């Protein structure tokens, strides 16, 4: 058997190991995890272990966005060392983030808006 044959056989063996790895049962959701999450009403969503600095990436239900979006230079995207380097990049968690209530008005549109109620 030549070296080339040996190489091809070794490659086939490596890929057989890859397929075997993929076929192995992945670590399933454990009863402990379900129990604690039920007890706590759901805690934690992002790739952050301790919430020491950025609540947003730990769980956006607790803080809907990262304050570093605003500081120190408002209106510029700022670097948050905690959440910018993780495997999750969570969008701002508010109902009106995608469908905001506020909008830019076109010319003449102001007349068509409903008038505010007078108290």
């Amino acid at each position, binding site marked *: 058997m030549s070296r080339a044959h040996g190489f091809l056989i070794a490659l086939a063996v490596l890929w057989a190991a890859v397929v075997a790895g993929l076929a192995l049962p992945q670590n399933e959701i454990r009863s402990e995890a379900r129990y604690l999450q039920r007890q706590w009403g759901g805690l*934690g969503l992002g790739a952050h272990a301790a919430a020491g600095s950025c609540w947003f990436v730990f769980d956006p239900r607790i803080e809907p966005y990262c304050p570093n979006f605003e500081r120190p230079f408002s209106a510029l995207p700022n670097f948050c060392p905690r959440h910018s380097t993780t495997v999750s990049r*969570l969008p701002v968690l508010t109902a009106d983030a995608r469908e905001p209530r506020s909008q830019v008005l076109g010319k003449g549109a102001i007349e068509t808006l409903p008038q505010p109620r007078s108290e």
Partner: protein
Amino acid sequence: MPKLLFLAALNLVKNPGRALALVLGIGGPLFLFIAGAAISAGLSRDATVSIESGADIYVTFDRGGLDANIPVSYVEELSKSQFVVEVRPRIVARLAVAPETWALVLGIDPIAAEEATGLQSGRLFESNSKNEVALGPVLAQRLGLTPGKQLLLATAFTHKVVTVVGILSRKGTLWDSAVIWAPFAQAQELFGMRDLATDILIRTRDEISATRLADRLARSEPRLRIQTRGLVRRYVLQGYGVTSGVFSAIYAVTFASGVLALLVISGLGSKERRREVALLKALGWSARHILVLVSLEALLCCLLASALSFLFAFAWVRLFNAPLLASLFIAELDWFPGIEIPAQFDAGILALGLGVSLAITWAGTLIPTWRTACVPLRETLR
């Protein structure tokens, strides 16, 4: 074709330096990519548990886009709704318990009806307990605490000595690791939040009831920030996309390394490659056959690099619990994590990595080879 495949393998074996440079150039970033993607998929799965086992609606006060504490009086008010099954107030806060060590203090009363399966040792406290807490496994290990030991929790409002009665299981989720779980009243006292909660968790009869109640609350009380399970599910899971976050950086690294590998194979080894092409042409090979041979060579290299990267990533994350690596992808984690790192290896990720490496390698090898193979033999030999 089998003959060409054999010749391609022979070429790789005869030029081990070139093949090794290519395999390392592609395999290194692919290892990071596969490991990161697996951890991301594992976290995404755990986030699903957090969402599905969590409340149907989270209610808190909104202070100009940021959360504010909500009066506990809302618990009684919300309980009256026909849609509601259960209402629980909760306090979530952080507290420094040692230098550079943060604990997440979670004040919520346990559901007594359930059998405590989430503990590694000790027991769970009672709802009316005044000074008992359960600790997350990493925090307990870091502070050297076991059931029965005492801990001083100091805030601006009070100093409180509590007894650790239980240590949470290591087999929970990532977010349990640094928790101090206390009864709600105890957390209120600790943070001076008399009559206040961080948020109120509502469990409703079903998803439709949750939507109706959320709509009704949003209309009746504009100060409230209301998050339904559906909203959280929709917004959070998209955060685990492979094209976002750190993966943008990893793609960039992959491409940069690919360019390096490309330089090695097309620039540094160009003289050698030209000689090979000229020799093959002299033997009567057509340009098409030469291109097929070179592309098969690149394919074998990429197959080798991706298989090795996958196997290394799999072993590193699943067998060794991702030391030195998990903390690159998960914030505030030790280099040697004390908890089981969630990971899910996926054939799709492997295929994506293989595809990217193939695209780079083919682009790097086929173009210079084609340029050499298309000129007359005399020119190539010059």
